[in-house]
């Protein structure tokens, strides 16, 4: 196998890693403000892909309109989930909230299967039907879109958290809810915003990755697990770390799949993850303190 083979593995890994990174960003956005670990985050991705696809295919909406409506709908659904499931449990043990989000995940998956199909769907590629070839390495245009979305979301979150009143209020809520409340921050609203933003990120991610990956009703939990691991690896609670963690997981598992037998792929990738966390339990970019940076 030549050098191009390994570079190609890394390129493919970056693309899939961006997907994991986007899911991880959703985890972090909610956690930073509310302290909730939302295992339905991957299902927002699935919903984004499937709802936009069926609005486009079955309802005949223009694809950009279908995508816009989808992001809005998933964000509103997330808000409803917060009010119906998370808020009533706010005084409960975190494990109960996690279990509740798993329950939400199951409900979303079952409803998606009932409403649409149990078969995977693929959304339309945004641009370019032929891959771009550079020095013997093929890159799909859609992969660039996904990486671009990841960078955009990361930059957007950084701007939100550091340059806007909303973002600073969300950060204040994450840092010290009581203090934030005492100085007039509407902490309840901040948590609602966190759920809306994270769902919008998830739905957009689903739309962007659906031309690349098979999106089926039951893929949400798998994405959630990968995204959660990415967020932990990058430094739990830190947005930039979450995205970097996603990239690292994606590259590791793809390179491991190329170098070793497929059966060892996850073992190798997660074995390396364990080693990293052994030496840096706070994650690649994390610290023991709550981060103020996005």
């Amino acid at each position, binding site marked *: *196998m030549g050098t191009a083979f390994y570079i190609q593995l890394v390129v493919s890994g970056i693309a899939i890693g961006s997907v994991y990174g986007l899911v991880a960003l959703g985890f972090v956005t909610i956690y930073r403000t509310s302290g909730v670990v939302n295992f339905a985050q991957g299902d927002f991705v699935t919903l984004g892909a499937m709802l936009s696809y069926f609005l486009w295919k079955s309802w005949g909406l223009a694809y950009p309109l279908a995508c816009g409506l989808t992001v809005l709908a998933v964000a509103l659904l997330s808000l409803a989930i917060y009010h119906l499931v998370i808020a009533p449990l706010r005084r*409960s043990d975190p494990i*109960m909230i996690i279990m509740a989000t798993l329950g939400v995940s199951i409900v979303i998956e079952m409803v998606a299967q009932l409403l649409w*199909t149990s078969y995977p769907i*693929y959304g339309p590629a945004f641009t370019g039907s032929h891959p771009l070839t550079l020095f013997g390495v*093929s890159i799909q245009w859609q992969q660039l879109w996904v990486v671009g979305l990841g960078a955009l979301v990361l930059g957007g979150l950084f701007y939100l958290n550091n340059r806007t009143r909303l973002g600073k209020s969300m950060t204040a809520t994450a840092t010290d*809810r009581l203090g934030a409340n005492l100085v007039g921050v509407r902490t309840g609203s901040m948590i609602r915003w966190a759920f809306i933003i994270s769902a919008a990120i998830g739905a957009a991610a689903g739309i962007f990755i659906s031309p690349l990956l*098979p999106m089926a009703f039951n893929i949400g939990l798998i994405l959630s697990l990968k995204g959660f691991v990415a967020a932990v690896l990058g430094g739990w609670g830190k947005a930039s770390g979450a995205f970097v963690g996603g990239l690292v997981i994606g590259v590791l598992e*793809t390179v*491991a799949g190329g170098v070793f037998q497929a059966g060892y792929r996850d073992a190798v990738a997660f074995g390396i993850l364990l080693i990293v966390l052994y030496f840096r339990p706070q994650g690649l970019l994390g610290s023991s303190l709550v981060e103020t940076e996005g």
Partner: protein
Amino acid sequence: MHRDEGDSRKIDGLGSIATAPVRRRSFLKYACLVGAVVSLGVLVGVAAACGSSSSSSGSSPAASSGGAGDVWKLGVVADLSGGLAAAGADVRDGAQLLVDQYNAAGGVKGPDGKMHQFELVVEDGGMDTGRSTAAFNKLIMNDKVTGLMGPLWGNEVPSAQAIVERAQIPALMASTPQPSTMDKGYKWSFMLAFSPQLMAQTEVATMQLIGATKVVAISDNEGFMQGSTDFVKDYLPKDGSIQYVIVPDTFTAGDVNLSAQAQKLKAQADQIGADALVINTDGMSAIPLIKAYHALGGDLAIIGNGAFANDAVITAGGKDVEGVYVPTPPVLNATALPDAVVLKPIEVKFVTDFKAKYGHSPSAFAANTYSAMGMWKEAFAAVGADKAKLNDYLSNMTNFMGPSGIYDWKATHNGESIEGQVIYQIKNGVWVPVAWLDKSGTPTKI
């Protein structure tokens, strides 16, 4: 900023959840709530299964009056939920179609001279070995069925075969024979879908049809698919005119990240200058691999297998599955078959009836249980509802023609014969028959 209404309650809300004392009463309250949420999810899933299930069994009428004999009860284990739910529904519907037709005609005359209605009891295997095992046990012990159909998912087969062998109840299984159980000499199970040997044989026929001389194959890690991929070597021309190389790696069906496998496939193909690829997995699982292969610039002819025989593959795969060859039972596009294909009249009737009842084309999975139901009718009519006699009758059945193929159970319990199999190619989103196979497996171009 204004403080939220009710923020006095929220001050120590989510932020202090880790330290807030949990009282027994509130714990129970929220445990119930969480339980309710999870239960709702389960209920929705069950509703999905029951909704499908009731539509199938609900249409079974009771035994007709006047000279009516006992109802002949058959069990079906179909994967109505999980990743194979749509295919599982076809498994159920294929059998139900014939049951409804028989019952609407007044039933089937048994050896006692009375007319008997059929009743199907459908259980969801859920693409889960444990659930499937429980379903088989329930149908045998609680529902007291006389015969069984299903499962579809290959991993459910070994335990299902062991159960029916122990219970001594005949079962026409909608799945492929599993290499791990093919040599066990089971007498009570009959595999309706193609054997790994048949699949290998049809793939070699496809290679010959398209003139491929250097072929690279890759398969998923299921025993059946790996067995088929290996069996291809046994059917290659003895003159060495086809070079066949298997990629030394597998993947898991349903995996979404197959870019590494696609690279290995392409690298191997480039190395030997291949002119065709064989991809042995189910069609939906093949799509990510084919997409990833095309994304690398690969453009070789692709040979699939009978597990691709599903319209959903075309819908999901789009341009990426254009041109893929699929050797399979003829059901995919029966009306386009030439009259020389011996199964054509059966296929056309099946497809027409299925579309009229369910509003969509049947898959090969539906054809399997439709064929099975035809066998049951013949067997019940001949010997009645005696399990041992039914099994003997089925075991001696030869040249049974159904839409899924021609069966000779006397020769083997492992799948249909190669005669009448058709090689399709996906062209412009349509299954186009390009050749059919005779008894020797030789392709005749259409």
